[in-house]
């Protein structure tokens, strides 16, 4: 029988669907009688879905384009890599 702590340890693999059948079966058996872990599993799964579907951390054209230009300008000018962080 696995404990809730064991379940949490395997939770990542369960979410990624990266489990041997036996372990998966044990985890599912645990879920069948442990509401706390069921809630944890469901809410973590929902978290992941929300994060991946939210379109967060965009890198849109107005930001990307000028950076491409700056980078290529510096390369063509044969710039040395700065040793201190530069602005702009």
């Amino acid at each position, binding site marked *: 029988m696995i404990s809730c*702590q064991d379940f*949490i340890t395997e*939770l*990542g*693999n369960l*979410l*990624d669907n*990266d489990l041997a059948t036996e372990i998966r079966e044990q985890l599912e058996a645990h879920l069948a009688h442990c509401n*706390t872990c069921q*809630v*944890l599993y*469901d*809410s*973590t799964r*929902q*978290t*992941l879905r*929300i*994060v*991946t*579907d*939210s*379109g*967060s*951390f965009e*890198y849109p054209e107005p*930001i*990307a384009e000028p*950076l*491409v230009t*700056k*980078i*290529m300008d*510096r*390369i*063509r000018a044969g*710039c040395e*890599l*700065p040793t201190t*962080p*530069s*602005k702009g």
Partner: protein
Amino acid sequence: MSFLPETENPDALASLAFFKQHFGFLPRVFRAQTARPDLIESQGKLIETLLFGKGSLTRIQKEFILLAVSGANQNSYFPAVHSQALQFLGVKAERSQQVAIDYHQANLAKADVALLDFARKLVLEPQAFTADDVEQLRARGFSEEQILEAVLMVGLTNLLNVVQIGLGTEPDFKPRLLFPPKEVNPAVDSERPMLERPLADESVSADPDAEFVARVKAGDTDAFEELVRRHGRRVYRSLLGILGSAEEAEDALQDAFLKAFQHLPEFEGRARFSTWLVRIALNTGLHRLRGRKDFETLDEDSEDFRPRRIQAWQENPEESYSREELRKLVEQEVMKLPSKYRVALMLRDLEELSTEEAANALGLTIPGLKARVLRGRLMLRESMVSYFAKTSAGVNA
């Protein structure tokens, strides 16, 4: 097969028995020396008195010095051999590997990290090694005898590493770890050429960037622009993960691409270009982080994270918010995560790198990477409960 022929020498058996007893098998590096059993015996004696013998440092401290110094020498042979012995001492294989690859991320006590910093500096920067380095260890509470043992352990490890290379000894078993670029370890000067040895197998079947990489290497600078466009978002998000600020990420992004361009001649295609690039980006980010006051907090927390707020969520929690609100909410909560969990989560769940690619990029073992991702996910879940839990009764665990 080693460089020198192995001789059949019955006298050698006695000298080899020592190794069989302590390691459970006969490491090839000693089997390759059977032409001189007396020398095998001397090395055995040194290992016995210095490493196994009762001294001032603990056995684990000495073994960790051996792991860290072998790691600094990019030697995977000895960590593999000693990992076995360490398991008998209660140290899991993953932990040994992590100490060899990057002991700053192995959840060690601060004094032990200082001990390994000392050892690493001695082997990698001997010309910069001074009385100050010894004084720093004293300040940490190490005795004169412990410091002596530490120095000798570094020397012994170097001896063993060099002998293995000089004899051309092949691994006793498939080494489970190979070393990522040194830059990923924050203790070392990052302006060294990138090496690319994958930690775990990536399926490098066809690198979609191979053509453009080849063109740039052949002198077509303009072709690099395509690579910048293709991977801008990934590099940006990786840096956002490490640095936590859009402005800094944009700055660091330029440095990362420039660095990649400069080091492209050294890229041999043994890993995917995008993985190599992300490593450079993360290293660039870490380099910046080092200057910050809050850098110390990258040390591993010792406790497991325990989820507390176990309330059921609404069926479709997203529906209560507009797309814009949701996006802002996610960004806000992800940005609150500690850097080391945030970057792991962003690489896996946003950039959808495989476990192997993400582990390689961050210089972690696979279990290490998985642990970070899980913790990030659990912490994020925790902070999002307030937004998404059912309004009717839930129980705080």
